[in-house]
């Protein structure tokens, strides 16, 4: 099958969702360490300084942005009136991608 922008958006939406679902329990466990006081949380946050973890974090921020952007498109398709032109809101796919790139840059700049 030749794949269009809609398919790539669907895949991006799905894979980012899977990544977030897998990460969420870990995220909560990590924050739960604060129960043991600031030091315990700090020692966990140290792990977050490892380069590999940094890359993973970057990926998750992107995943969150992607999932938000493409999710809003789905809501627009399903809940807003269906215009004759571009009812699939394909332009929103590109807009969402652009927004995601911006978020990625902002995160990368902040981290270094």
């Amino acid at each position: 099958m030749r794949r269009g922008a809609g398919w790539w958006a669907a895949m991006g939406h799905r894979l980012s969702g899977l990544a977030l679902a897998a990460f969420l329990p870990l995220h909560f466990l990590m924050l739960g360490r604060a129960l043991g006081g600031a030091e315990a949380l700090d020692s966990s946050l140290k792990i977050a300084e490892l380069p590999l973890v940094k890359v993973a974090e970057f990926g998750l921020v992107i995943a969150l942005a992607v999932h938000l952007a493409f999710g809003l498109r789905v809501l627009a398709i399903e809940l807003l009136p269906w215009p004759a032109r571009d009812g699939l809101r394909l332009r929103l796919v590109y807009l969402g991608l652009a927004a995601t790139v911006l978020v990625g840059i902002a995160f990368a700049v902040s981290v270094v």
Partner: protein
Amino acid sequence: MSEARLFLLQRLTALVMAPLVLVHLVLIVVAVQGGLTAGEILGRTQGSVFWGLFYGIFVLVAAIHAPIGLRNVLREWTGIGRRPIDWLMVAFGVLLLVLGWRAVVAVVGGGA
């Protein structure tokens, strides 16, 4: 629960989460500037009713939203039966809720 009800819940939680995710993304980008420390995180959240409500609601809607989405993925991409998937998803939702609220208590509650 009927498909229509699950659909309603998932779209409703998506609508609630859209602004929450935006705030969360901005916060991440701001917070990671100059490294992440427990003191910084807890300083912002500890004892704050606003952040307590913010993250309390965030966890609740995420714990509803994620299992419904994951259910579709498992149905389509794995050979697991429908019933087992439904039970797995209930368990996953409860897990997210418990771990998530525990994390909220940890970062917002009295602390050490």
